[in-house]
């Protein structure tokens, strides 16, 4: 079933290249993939910690390389996100004037690649599937993009290519950092090796830095973020939806899947650096977002900014913060896809996304106004949307983290500063909403038509999913926590063995049940202090 979800879009893309009717095939493939993902969700056994629906084909025995796929809670969440966003993006795409076949094939390749990366248990295919998106993105922006397309396409492609080669170096180093006997591309085997403490602290520090930079470029971590707004502004709406909604989550998924569980010492070592960089995302990029004068650029920057929260959750390395990060990844993917989709529809109708030329559009496009408003509220993190659940867990998780050390620590400072991000995003989102949909209607836009009923389906689906997990985040938490508990418990025993650990950095909050956590953590800390 996992193989079906991965290859459904890819095979559909090949069929479209060969000559199948583009839009129908693409829609059918995305519906089938979504249905298969929902089936995976329904048949998912919440209590099991290991990967489910595992299939494996050996590629190279001496390299311990095999094409292994399967899902645990974390990857299932991402696969679900990918299939929902793909479905919405393809529905939003509509009729394409130029080379329709190639357009839909590119979208499906991006989607299939992302799903493949999320569902691969093998390091090599995890990496390779993500790269499947590189050339389609280049073509999508280059051929169908708007005004700034040439520069944007080059920038995103070169940036991501170099980023992924840095990542590749990191992954090779990770593979080599375990003893020869247990070298394997299988993530489960690497986790086992890490659990036995076979990855030396030195190697962990090097690998973590490489992974942080490599993944960071793909995620648009603060100093490496400049490609993102430009590319999203220039990309056609469905490409921006897929890229901001799904592909960017690949880097975060990679950090959660590899860096946090396998390299606790490395994570601890570089925590302060990561905190500074993520504050750059939240505060600096947040302020830059406020200054934007165009809706597409504003959305691009806002998606960069929101990565900061997710990084905060990952940096906390505690189950509460990490779970929150996953929920926010999911929610952010849905909300940014909704906003980019609606912005694309606006561009189709008005031909411009400059704030000063828009205004009052809610009068002529009430549904678009409503949907955009809901998307904006979700992005801000209003209660009732999944984003809120994610952000609140991240903030609590991150704040608790330092508290256990007993003093007011950089983690608290970072959390307090990050909280201001909510204010910043409120400012720019509401301002964008006011300038676009409220106020006096420009004469030019009197004749605009609202989204036709058909196009309301994907918007409603995205909003529905956001509300669903906003009101019932527990179902999501139940799905993802077992995946983390596996290594968090392994890490804890591992960490107490570590003589070298740096007291100033990460402390682990208790597991999900906050009941006896304090007592246990306190004991752990005392043990460390005694040494």
């Amino acid at each position, binding site marked *: 079933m996992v193989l079906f979800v991965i290859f459904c879009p890819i095979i559909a893309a090949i069929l479209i290249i060969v000559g199948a009717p583009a839009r129908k095939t693409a829609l059918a493939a995305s519906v089938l993939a979504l249905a298969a993902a929902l089936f995976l969700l329904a048949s998912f056994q919440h209590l099991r910690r290991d990967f489910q629906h595992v299939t494996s084909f050996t590629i190279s025995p001496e390299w311990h390389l095999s094409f292994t796929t399967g899902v645990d809670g974390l990857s299932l969440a991402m696969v679900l996100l990918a299939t929902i966003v793909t479905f919405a993006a393809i529905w939003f795409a509509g009729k394409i004037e130029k080379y329709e076949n*190639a357009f839909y094939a590119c979208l499906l390749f991006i989607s299939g690649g992302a799903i493949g990366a999320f569902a691969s248990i093998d390091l090599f295919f995890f990496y390779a599937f993500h790269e499947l998106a590189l050339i389609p993105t280049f073509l999508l922006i280059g051929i169908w993009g708007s005004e700034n397309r040439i520069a944007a396409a080059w920038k995103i492609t070169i940036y991501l290519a170099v980023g992924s080669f840095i990542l590749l170096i990191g992954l090779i180093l990770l593979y080599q950092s375990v003893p020869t006997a247990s070298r394997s591309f299988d993530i489960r085997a690497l986790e086992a090796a890490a659990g036995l403490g076979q990855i030396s602290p030195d190697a962990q520090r090097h690998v973590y830095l490489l992974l942080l930079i490599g993944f960071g470029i793909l995620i648009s971590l603060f100093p490496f973020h400049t490609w993102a707004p430009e590319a999203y502004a220039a990309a056609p709406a469905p490409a921006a939806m897929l890229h901001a909604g799904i592909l960017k989550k690949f880097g975060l998924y990679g950090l959660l899947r590899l860096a946090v569980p396998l390299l606790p010492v490395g994570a601890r070592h570089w925590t302060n650096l990561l905190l500074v960089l993520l504050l750059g995302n939240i505060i600096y990029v947040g302020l830059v977002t406020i200054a934007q004068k165009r809706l597409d650029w504003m959305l691009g920057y806002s998606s960069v900014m929101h990565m900061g929260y997710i990084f905060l959750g990952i940096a906390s390395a505690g189950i509460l913060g990490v779970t929150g990060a996953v929920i926010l990844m999911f929610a952010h993917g849905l909300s940014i896809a909704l906003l980019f989709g609606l912005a694309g529809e606006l561009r189709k109708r008005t031909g411009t996304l400059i704030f000063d030329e828009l205004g009052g559009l809610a009068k002529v496009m009430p549904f678009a106004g409503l949907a955009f408003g809901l998307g904006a509220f979700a992005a801000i993190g209003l209660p009732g949307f999944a984003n809120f659940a994610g952000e609140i867990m991240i903030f609590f998780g991150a704040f608790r983290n330092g508290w256990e050390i007993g003093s007011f620590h950089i983690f608290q400072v970072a959390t307090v500063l990050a909280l201001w991000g909510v204010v910043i995003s409120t400012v720019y989102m509401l301002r964008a909403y006011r300038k676009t949909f409220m106020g006096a209607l420009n004469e030019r836009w009197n004749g605009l038509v609202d989204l036709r009923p058909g196009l309301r389906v994907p918007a409603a689906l995205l909003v529905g999913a956001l509300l669903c997990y906003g009101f019932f985040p527990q179902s999501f938490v139940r799905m993802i926590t077992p995946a983390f508990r596996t290594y968090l418990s392994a890490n804890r025993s591992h960490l107490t063995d570590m003589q070298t650990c740096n007291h100033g950095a990460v402390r682990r909050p208790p597991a999900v049940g906050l009941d006896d956590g304090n007592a246990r953590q306190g004991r752990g800390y005392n043990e460390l202090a005694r040494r």
Partner: protein
Amino acid sequence: VSVIKAPQLEIAVLVLGMVILMFEAFAAKIDKRILAFAAIAGLVVILVATFFVTPVPAPYQAAGFWNFYTADRLSIFFKQFALLTTILVLIMMIDYAPVVRSSFSGARDGLGEFFAVPIFTCAGLMYLVSAIDFIFIFVSLELVTISFYVLVSFTRRNPVTLEAGVKYLVLSALSTAFFVYGIAWIFGATGQTNLQRVTEALANADTNQSAALLGMVLVLVALGFKIAAVPFQIWVPDVYQGAPTPVTAYLSVGSKAAGFVVLLRVLRPFLALPQMQRLLILIALLTLIYGNLAALPQGDLKRLLAYSSIAHAGYLLIGVVCLDGSAVVFYLVAYLLMTLLSFAVLVIVAQQTGEQISDFDGLGQRSPFLAFAMLIGMVSLAGVPFTAGFLGKFFIFYAAILQRQIGLVVVGVITVGCGFYYYLKVIRAMYWQSTAKLDMIPVTGLSRFAISALIVATIWLGVYPQPILNMLKR
């Protein structure tokens, strides 16, 4: 025990070449392309025969023929490599025939020799990969080089080609001189020409190490010329651009692969000397940087591929520095597939429009098949996963990281970024740009088959490299 012995393969190739030449001389009235088809058929038979040859390394301290000829696994593998390259080049040459014919006036179209000479080059390459004695290396290298003298300047009415021929001739002769001089030094220091015995002599404390090292450096100069390593790469852009396109492809794949095989064999005795490694690292760094940076501004696709060939020599040299023979070999196989794929498309498209990148504008509309083939070729050269080129880079970087060659890795990553830019320039032309011309580009059945096979092989090896890894396993 197999019926076919390794040396018979080369003899078969030589006989095939003679027969083709005889037909050219005495059967003047036939369509000369029949000769090419006959040559391809003959080489395919020999290629199939190679799979029935059991690898037999030359026995230790052997005398006579086995003193300078080995049929180990590596050499059999590269004989197959050379045969495959020659077959594909001959297919390209059939497509290129109209250009050659138009450059000759009168009844003689010169096509017969054009199809026959590569067979002798192939024999030279096959001898070269088996050679384990400096004298034999020299002789077979000369067989390759002299046949290339003819091929490079084949369309001699074209002044650009003539210039390329002269440049190749002069610089190649110079590098040959370096090679002989180097061999003389090595022989003088060790008293041996057989690689095995040179190794033993070097281990001997009485041997004058620095004299042998000087000889090796001189040999390295000559081989640097063959593999297009900086600073011996000056000839590459002009010669690649001026030579007939199939010959350019042959030069950049066959000649380079042979150079690397010889390099791997010849370097082995000198591995223990640390100076050698430092020198190679320096050459690799320079080659990577020069090839990739110089490729960035190119607007002529053939010239771009020339610089890219220098760049790939840099990646291959990383593998050589790290002494990872199988990584080098895998990279060479990937390089063969993707380079020949690109050249095959270039040969066909260039006859319709031209060799500039801008001549590829709108190819995505004019000929989706050729554009897709070029896309795969470029993407593989750039190093995108699920293509052979990526796995080649993967194994090379793997070896470099294992050896902690941080400088090479850092420069390698940066140059990969450059590579993405100039290879994607071609993709950009094919798919972004539009063109006024919209007529289809005809592709013959044989070329379509060869190009499809190369596409499939490039992707297949990118997903499932195990067949090649198995062949290289000791």
